[in-house]
């Protein structure tokens, strides 16, 4: 199991499109992925509804946890996606 933190940098936070991109990428890995907020709320990283309902906005910090054979690659790719503002802006 591997966990790393990231900060949301894009303006919208986890709106539909960023959340979708996150889910699309997360779904490419076999590892089980969990996204946690600092306040403890967490969701399945492959659930767009779950991510959206976390109500993550610009500036919030999240931890991305992966558990599985490709956990390292999964966490790194997802952190990169978030830190790069989901390739938008």
């Amino acid at each position: 199991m591997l966990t790393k933190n990231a900060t949301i940098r894009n303006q919208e936070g986890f709106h539909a499109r960023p959340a979708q991109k996150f889910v699309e990428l997360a779904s490419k890995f076999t590892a089980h992925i969990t996204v946690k907020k600092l306040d403890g709320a967490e969701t399945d990283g492959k659930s767009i509804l779950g991510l959206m309902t976390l109500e993550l906005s610009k500036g919030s910090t999240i931890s991305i946890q992966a558990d599985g054979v490709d956990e390292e690659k999964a966490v790194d790719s997802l952190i990169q996606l978030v830190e790069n503002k989901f390739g938008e802006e």
Partner: protein
Amino acid sequence: MSELRLQGIGVSRGTRIGKAFIYLTAEKEEVQAEETITEAEVADVLARVDQAKQQSFDELENIIRTVKKTVGENEASIIQAQQAFLNDPAFFPEIIKNIRVKKFTAEKSVKQVVAQFVNIFLAMKDEYLRERATDLQDLERRLLKHLNNNRAPELTDIREEVILVAKDLTPSDTVQINKEYIQAFITQIGGKQSHTAILARTMEIPAIVGMGKQVQIINQGDVLIIDGLSGICIVNPDKKTLEGYRKQIAKEQEEQANLAEYITKQARTIDGYLVEIATNIGNPEEAELALAKGAEAIGLYRTEFLFMENNHLPTEEEQYRAYRKAAETMSGKAVIIRTLDIGGDKELDYLSIPRELNPFLGYRAIRLTLDRRELFLTQLRAILRASSYGKIKIMFPMISNLQELSKAKEVLAEAKQQLSDEGIEYAKDIEIGIMIEVPSAALIADRFAKEVDFFSIGTNDLVQYTLAVDRMNEKVAYLYDYFHPAVLQLIKMTIEASKRAGKWSGMCGGMAGDPLAVPVLIGLGLDEWSMDAGSMLKIKQLITKLSKKDCEELTAELLQLGTAEEIKSRIRQFYKENKIKT
């Protein structure tokens, strides 16, 4: 596979060959009413919900493609989100869990899961995310739509020529029948005068009822031959049989063409006695068809269909428009509007009439409308208002004593007074009549004759009440016979009473359209004959070939006979003697 011959009760003539369409009403209604399912149904429901998911996904795919082309990528992403919701591990698996574990119906499962997320979104601070509740609701609508489409098909969905096979057809089913596609129908239950049978004749759709459980042998798509006259239904016929029936169909079409010359002819016997040929309708649109078939009047406008087609009590305005349309279509020809005849076998959900053990002897027709005065007053106002646009007459159903008639007249007087006070026009001299369908009314017809302008004999109920035969019960349907001497006697009394008072009598039951009954009804002096549109030409043709004098002599003879069988065989002999083919 060899052919199979089934026998039922032929209720609407005509031969058709077509593919079977199995329509099961009763079972379908049960499923819709329940909110939970049984263990045995789980697999079916899961399959249905899965199909709806796939259909929704494919539909979204198409929308996304179009939006990308016509609007732009950004807008398409909103719709892509809906697709993502469908594949979300927190969404669809929850719906399946609801079905598997909580035994919810597919619809309830979808609604419950959607509601859960909608509530979360609506509570959010981020306005954009709050808005996403709408996307979920949109997805919900999409899923429910597909779930609904995956149900057993509705009659309105039929888009090819078929022969309908059903347990029974409710009045609301029959109003949905599209003649363009439904060539004929057969039902498991019902008798010659059940409402399904009457409607089949009105719509001129060949039909067989009372087939019993044997209809269950028929499979979807089987080739059927239906002979609505003999009541024979042949399943998967041989080549030779098919050939024979194709010839019969051609002959029928030729006969129909020959009868066409009677459209413009009057129904006058060879010795000059003229009668009026009218038709029964259930909605104003049928008036047009009736005119095209040479109807000289509407002898019975059954207003209950207006009430059955709606899921609410039709307003005065809605009723007025329908009645006015019928009156205007007939342009000066009489339209006899029967006030609401509901109860018995014609139930209305929104009126919440309690179920009765003996509905035909219970709270129905005039008894109900006198009790629900507001409803009655509304209908009478609508009829009166329409009466300025044609020749409308009012008829009260199921009158059994004089008090009922005077009470009905009181309500009519009140409706007239209201309209006068409001300055609304209506035909002040509007004629009123009663149905003679309860034996007590026929027996004291002389007293009724002083109080009304006309009688209309409703043979269907008159036979049922006189002979104590439930016309819906296929086990006793064989006893139902308007040639029973007691029935003929009551008809004779009614017609004679009206003539003595200088009034007239009509008949709006099935007997008026029966070729075999023509000589008796001429003999008894029936003035107005109202029948299904499809019977008019044949009856006119027969009348023009008979003489009143001969028919009177025959009738005097018939009235001495003891059984319906003797009476019918004597009439057949009479036709033979006169070389007339029925």
